[in-house]
């Protein structure tokens, strides 16, 4: 029962949900796995923290929530503080290195890999593609989904006319991920 649990966290406006959604879509539609995405709702969430949970599995997914993620994708310090205690021992943290600083709270055996995703996004001309950089970074660093799949998933998820920019962002993140994770 190969199952990977992922939590993506950040601030409203960073495209957290889309990031998680592309990961899920990629696994579920282009990789033939099962994937379940759950997003946090709530008036209390208004305008501040924002997070999503993705479970990717070879088998059908019963329990839909992510309680102890294997992988954390973090785009804000708040998210780091909130979610790091949940990370599985030996888990992986992928973080935006300008927005998140890793302290000593990482669980046993956990690995943290950072990326200056905002800067990359800005270099590409739009801060907004930060989340796509993170998707690429995720794909590159984890090998959970293939480049082909994630490429398709991004193409079919972003607004018409923005494909090129987004694919560039994806590639940037992907390559950086591969490099950093040594994949």
């Amino acid at each position, binding site marked *: 029962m190969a199952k990977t649990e992922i939590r993506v966290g950040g601030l409203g406006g960073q495209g957290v949900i889309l990031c998680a959604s592309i990961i899920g879509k990629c696994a579920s539609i282009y990789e033939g796995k099962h994937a379940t995405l759950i997003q946090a709702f709530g008036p209390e969430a*208004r305008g501040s923290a924002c997070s999503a949970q993705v479970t990717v599995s070879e088998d059908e997914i019963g329990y839909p929530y992510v309680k102890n993620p294997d992988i954390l994708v973090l785009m804000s310090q708040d998210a780091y503080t909130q979610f790091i205690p949940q990370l599985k021992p030996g888990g992986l943290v992928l973080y935006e290195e300008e927005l998140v600083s890793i302290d000593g709270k990482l669980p046993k055996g956990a690995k943290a890999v950072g990326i200056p995703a905002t800067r990359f996004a800005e270099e590409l001309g739009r801060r907004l593609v930060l989340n796509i950089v993170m998707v690429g970074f995720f794909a590159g660093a984890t090998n959970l989904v293939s480049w082909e799949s994630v490429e398709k998933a991004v193409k079919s998820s972003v607004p018409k006319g923005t494909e090129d920019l987004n694919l560039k962002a994806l590639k940037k993140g992907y390559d950086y991920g591969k490099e950093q994770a040594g994949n």
Partner: protein
Amino acid sequence: MSEEMGLEMEQDLERECALENPVLPYLRQDRIPHIWCPGCGIGTTVNCFARALTESGMNMDDIAIVSGIGCTGRVAGYLNLDSFHTTHGRAIPFATGLKLANPHMKVVVYSGDGDLSAIGGNHLLHAARRNMDLMVVCVNNFTYGMTGGQVAPTTPTGPTQTTMPYGNFESSFNLPALASACGAVYVARWTVYHVRQLAKAMREGLQKKGFVFIEALSPCPTLYSRRNRLGDGVDQVKYYKERSIVKNGADTKDVGLTYQGDIVVGKFVDRERPTWMDSMNEHFTKVLGNKFTPYGVENGQD
């Protein structure tokens, strides 16, 4: 001097002189920070209300606040008054019951445009008709904030809302006209730009006997202005500033709103009419003579 140093010095001074934001005594401080988004205007209206409370000189124990459901509906929960967060659309009838059961209370209804004019429209009408002694503050942000930005009966024709995904093609209510047509004795509209006027209207409303309707236009950056590329909260308030025209005493039928058009603000109606309870007391006294003891005035109240 760095900014942080500045802040520290401020805090020392505050402590030393026992200074305090004048809104704080009116808030349940253990519930702050509130849930409202950055740039949401609801908090600003709360400041105005606090100012009105101060200026009215009333005893806060004698004031109850009743809200429906919505972002604005959360106001009740933040105010340090007897406060009731009821059901969607039903703040007015709850308030009616509260007022009639405990006539010496001043009962304020504080709720959203959707709450008061969509699902709750009927109660607005009837309370105004009866001249129930309530002050209604309607925070009109042209949308259903709490549920994510659906079209409201107040949404002007034009802007996009989630249930009007290609732009709103419905006509919207002119709330002051409605309240006035039904018999409200005090009707005013201000925006969160007009903080002093809004505070004054609220103070007058608190002191007025009968059905008071105050519309406060307020930005919902998250679901209305940003979605329609109108910028943030502050941009919306600037629009209020630029396009508002003060016309006290304006005929309410001329104060309808359009999408980003002119906004007529002011005190439109201020008249006298016996409240429901006064009418009841007067009528029963006339008909029943001393078999009847006027209600709600036994303890010199009301």
